[in-house]
């Protein structure tokens, strides 16, 4: 088991190295970067140095003058030592901006994820137990509709109904107009109020796949021989489903849930941008569009690590939960 884990971790490190190499290559290839536009701005100030001089100085400042591989190793070294540099777009250290935003995203993601689990798993099980019934059809179609729904369209619809027509929520932002005047409790509720629509969006958009996954796995278990045995023993249907079948359905569910835990930190790029919630997704969206290389590199590396961690966790959990896998 330990050997298995160590092997997986080492592999993840190698993958990370190459993923970041590809990303670094892409970033270096961007012709019109933020550096150039800054250099252009600075060179246009009266009595300033020429554009070329500014460009050289800024390149040296950000380690862009080193060779390609040298630059990458330099960046990787800095990254591993925790030197993430300063964000060009936000003009503060990357890590500071990260700390300011990531927890909001995590809160939002965690609440949405919990709601998803609470809603999707029971519905998936109900759909599986009542296969081919009307309930099953409705749940399956709703799950597919959730998968097919483009985030931005759903968010716009929610905004139209709940913000414009009913006026229950604000269209944008995390805090209301009179946030500063509120007591701490009021501030908390103000934020919570503003997070309702984004969380609803997240839940509806991502609930479908979990629901389908639960249903498929439950069906697979229900068709297994040991369920037939349980029924043949004369156990009540309740006991068959909730004692015997559900526990076995948990195996794939636990691995997938465990695998998505790191992803809670990654932020919801699109949803946060749509609602202007200053989480990590929204922050990085603006950094990326604004050509902020240090912040973008940090965010991409962070996302890669989260993905790798997710895969690792689900692999390990799978091996832990299902002893049959361990040999492989």
């Amino acid at each position, binding site marked *: 088991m330990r050997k298995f884990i160590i092997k997986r971790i080492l*592999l993840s490190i*190698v*993958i*990370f190295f*190459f*993923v970041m190499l*590809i*990303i670094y290559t*892409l*970033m270096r290839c*961007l*012709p*019109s970067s933020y550096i150039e*536009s800054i250099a252009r701005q600075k060179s246009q100030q009266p009595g300033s140095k020429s554009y070329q001089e500014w460009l050289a100085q800024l390149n040296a400042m950000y380690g862009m003058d080193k060779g390609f591989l040298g630059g990458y190793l330099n960046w990787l070294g800095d990254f591993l030592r925790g030197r993430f540099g300063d964000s060009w777009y936000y003009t503060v250290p990357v890590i500071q901006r990260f700390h300011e935003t990531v927890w909001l995203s995590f809160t939002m993601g965690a609440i949405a994820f919990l709601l998803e689990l609470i809603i999707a798993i029971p519905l998936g099980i109900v759909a*599986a137990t009542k*296969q081919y019934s009307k309930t099953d*059809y409705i749940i*399956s*179609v709703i799950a*597919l*509709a959730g*998968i*097919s*729904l*483009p*985030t*931005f*369209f759903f968010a*716009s*619809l929610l*905004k*139209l109904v709940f913000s*414009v027509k009913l006026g229950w929520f604000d*269209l944008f932002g995390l805090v209301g107009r009179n946030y500063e005047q509120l007591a701490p409790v009021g501030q908390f509720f103000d934020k919570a109020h503003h997070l309702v629509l984004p969380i609803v969006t997240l839940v509806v958009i991502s609930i479908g796949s979990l629901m389908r996954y639960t*249903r*498929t796995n439950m*069906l*697979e278990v229900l*068709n297994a021989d040991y369920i037939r045995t349980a029924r043949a023993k004369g156990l009540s249907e309740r006991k068959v489903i909730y004692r015997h079948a559900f526990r076995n359905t948990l195996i794939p569910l636990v691995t997938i849930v465990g695998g998505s835990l790191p992803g809670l930190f990654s932020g919801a*790029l*699109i949803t946060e*941008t749509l609602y202007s919630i200053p989480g990590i997704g929204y922050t*990085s*969206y603006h950094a*990326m*569009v*604004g*050509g902020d290389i240090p912040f*973008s590199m940090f*965010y*991409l590396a962070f*996302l*890669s690590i989260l*993905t*790798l961690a997710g895969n690792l966790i689900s692999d390990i959990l799978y091996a832990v939960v299902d002893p049959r896998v361990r040999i492989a």
Partner: protein
Amino acid sequence: MDDNKNLNSESTAQEAEPQYSLNDDRRVKVLSPGAMVAKRFVRNRTAVTGLVILIFMFLFSFVGGLITPYKEDQQFYRTEYQNKPYAGAVMNEELRFAAAEGQNFSSVIQAQVVLAVTTGKDSVKYRSVTYHVTEEGPSLYTVSLDDGTVIGCAYRDVVTSSVAGQKLSFDLIYNALKAYTNGANAFSADGKEYSLSDGGLIELNGSEVAFISRYVINPIMANEFLSRDFQEQLSASLENGDDEFTFVDENGVESVYTINYKASFKTWDILQATPSRVYDTYASPSSSHWLGTDRNGMDMLTRLMYGGRVSLIIGFLVELIATVLGVILGGIAGYFGKWVDNLIMRIVDIFYCIPSMPIIIILGAAMDAMSVDPTIRMAYLMLILGFLGWPGMARLIRGQILSLREQEFMTATEATGLSVHRRIFRHLIPNVIPQIIVSVSMGIGGTIITESTLSFLGLGVKFPFASWGNIINDVNNTFVLTNFWFIWIPAGVCLLLTVLAFNLVGDGLRDAFDPKMKR
């Protein structure tokens, strides 16, 4: 006889359908695997619904674009009226003066006359000369000397020449006003006979010379000449206190004028509505534009059709690229195994780990900065999406081939000495085609969502091309979100239906291909 006939026909029917014994194979109708799949697919109601939606969307996008009378980027105009000042009118309340030819009717005397009129005296004295002020009517006073010589007159109704540049003699003005005040229909002046209508029109031998009106109307533009008709009708409207009046000029052109009374100056502004052509933006649905027009004045329904084309084509091409790459690499990895498999699967792992959405956003922003041509940009977008999409397909193919490789028919191909290329692409891949079709059908839906999300953010398909995503992009303008549902709801519904249909069909195909999997 009849019975016999029936018997005969029955027996012929039996001959046509010969009786087989119960365990004869010919009793069972044999269907090809393809027909079985089709049969199972047609039985699945949701999948058929999906297929119908898809067919509709294809017709809508590809045929609709041909049928619609408008082009993708055809802009429409509407005429908007803007009020521009055209003329000014004043009701004359002050006395005006006209001096008779050769007489001295100085301004001092005029001032004295005004005083006399307001105080009701009938004569004024100035420098020991007495001037008699005779009231001829409500707004005409004759000023004469003791001997009766008329030296001038004071009046309020204004006599305006009908012919540009013509100067009116005192005699004409005086006599005309006199006749007007007294309600006479004719008068003589300068030895000529003039006729006078009730409206104040002065005519000589049937051709108009001048007219009398209480209103002084001047054009705002110096080069404009206001016809008498216009002035007369305007005066009538002013008299009635109208806000608006319509005038048809001699060329038959009708224009509407707005009349504004400015109380502080006691003047009227006459505004003419001049037409100007503007883009017909955000027009509501109508018979000529069923879904209205967008912010550029383009027909929404047509944009929707062309947008569907772009979205569907991108979806297909991206999946094509991803599938070709995935099948080749997955096939090689699965067939050869060992280090080749290891190498390719590690590459797949690496690509799997690349956060695709942020990468595409960064590349999109970079293309923005380079202002890449929209057509080339669309090609890049497809290449990027396709290149980021192949690892999933490669994994799927490899897994399938790993299990197929060990089966007997593969040993047989090896025994018959077929080439490796033939073994992979003629014998292994066709067995994976069901999985490929299902995965592609679901993948197109996902690609369309990705593309539309990017276009929505302004980083995907760009104007002048339409895509369902960049049509919805307009809701970033809250005013559009609130007021113009027809701009973005239809595009969103199309998007939702299409992606849903692809998923339904994919689901249905999976069930149809592999009945064991139907759960």
